């Protein structure tokens, strides 16, 4: 792991009220978890690989269209994560069953007739329920709403319209890949093209550098496919720490260190600062980057992530303007 020479940032930014300066590494990424004493601890599975079951029993009336089976789509989504570079592959081969609802000790992905409380046409497409003991994830279920409002789920790209003329097509694999990110312990990301970005495009099944970084920090391969580095620093405004600033490293080159992994798209890698204003961006492949700090004020904002509540804060701080703070290489 290399560490950027962030002392350069201090020189650049002393003219601004908003400064970055070097501090010891803190935590990184938008992961599900909790903070105690200002230190964030991510939730993660510790008993690996995680056994997943896919229910082939689809609730009656489910708005599922296409010739590809539901379970095949989910297998593709699982494969996207399992095939990510540097990822320890915590997700085991999924098995099939016919459960119509959750069961103790089963990590289920389903269009279940028994679910946490969808109501027809309530606008909810899917949700992931994770069960934790301390910071250990001990169970998870992904529920798709059989009858969401205004949408039908497409299991393949051959679907161009829904049976109900008022509905629009949503790619199932896109939603499933996002939800599986939650299942392994990732929260939403503020990086726009990340699969964990909270707003879904019609179809996006590739993982981003940001998704890969978040996942591999949780579950690193002992022998990484591609060596990665880190950038650390802190964000302050007029001498006081900025909590919850979105800091991301954006490549300034056209290179792609993950070129051997076609299912990965190049994006910035971003995190939020902790209560001391500190950040560490881990999982950066070798490249040149500019580091940018911006307020988390939309399209992803405080309400889309659990960061503030994890730290016992009411909200992240957003009363500053976006700054390009640093150019460096890992």
């Amino acid at each position, binding site marked *: 792991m290399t560490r950027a020479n962030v002392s350069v940032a201090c020189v650049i930014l002393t003219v601004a009220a908003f400064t970055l300066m070097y501090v010891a590494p803190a935590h990184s990424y938008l992961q*599900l978890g909790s903070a105690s004493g200002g230190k964030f601890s991510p*939730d993660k599975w510790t008993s690996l690989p995680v056994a997943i079951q896919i229910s082939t029993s689809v609730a009656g009336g489910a708005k599922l269209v296409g010739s590809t089976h539901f379970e095949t789509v989910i297998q593709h989504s699982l494969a996207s994560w399992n095939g990510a570079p540097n990822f320890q592959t915590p997700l085991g081969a999924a098995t099939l069953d016919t459960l119509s*609802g*959750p069961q*103790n000790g089963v990590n289920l992905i389903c269009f279940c007739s028994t679910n*946490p*409380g969808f*109501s027809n*046409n*309530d*606008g*909810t*497409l*899917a*949700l*992931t*329920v*994770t*069960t*934790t*003991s*301390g910071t250990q994830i*001990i169970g998870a279920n992904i529920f798709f709403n059989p009858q969401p*409002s*205004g*949408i039908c789920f497409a299991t393949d790209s051959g679907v161009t319209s829904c049976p109900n003329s008022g509905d629009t097509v*949503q790619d199932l694999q896109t*939603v499933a890949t*996002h*939800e599986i990110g939650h299942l392994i312990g990732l*929260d*939403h990301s*503020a*990086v*726009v*093209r990340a699969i*964990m*970005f*909270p*707003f*879904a*495009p*019609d179809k996006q099944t590739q993982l981003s550098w940001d998704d890969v970084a978040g996942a591999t920090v949780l579950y690193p391969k002992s022998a990484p496919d591609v060596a990665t580095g880190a950038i650390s620093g802190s964000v302050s405004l007029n001498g006081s720490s900025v909590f919850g600033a*979105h800091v991301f490293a954006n490549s300034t080159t056209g290179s792609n260190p993950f070129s051997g992994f076609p299912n990965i798209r190049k*994006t*910035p890698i971003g995190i939020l600062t902790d209560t001391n204003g500190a950040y560490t961006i881990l999982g950066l492949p070798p490249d040149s980057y500019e580091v*940018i700090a*911006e307020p*988390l*004020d*939309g*399209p*992803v*904002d*405080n*309400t*889309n992530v*659990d960061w503030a*509540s994890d730290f016992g804060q009411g909200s992240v701080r957003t009363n500053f303007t*976006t700054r390009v703070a640093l150019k460096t290489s890992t």
Partner: protein
Amino acid sequence: MKRFAYLLLLAVSRLLFATTVIPLGVESLTRMSTHVVEGKAVSSTSQWNSEHTFIFTYTQFEVQKTLKGQTPNTVTVRQIGGTVEGITQKVAGVRHWRPGEEAVLFLQPSSIPDGALVVTGLIQGNFLMRRTPAGQTYVSNGMPDAFEYKAAAGEVTSYRGNTMQLDELESRIQKAVVK
């Protein structure tokens, strides 16, 4: 954040993921809800369901104003997730209220016979209130309504989150109720 974020946006996104929902407007939320109230969270308790598969959190709200339906002085609202005896269930995007928090709540009866109401649209019918030092009250359910990306300019020209002043939300609810 908007400019830098949208410089990277290749396609306009339209849904909110995980909890993956389809954005609903205030008018739709009003139509879909049996009760719309302004309330202050007083207390919360969490418990397993009878099958021991889900933890639900029940929050009692002191009703300050009723905008739709008939409600008693307090209502109990159920949400998925919570902590019981060291075991926690979480759903990304579902936030539990803390005592003292105020919200405009779009509610409907629970499918489970527990006497509680649930938030319409799972998370969308929960508009948290925020008061400014200047005395204004804003409400937001954290759901951006609409935005526009101009690829040629590489910037967003308009973005309007589903955040508004309380007066505007009340007005839209009242108009939707009359219709």
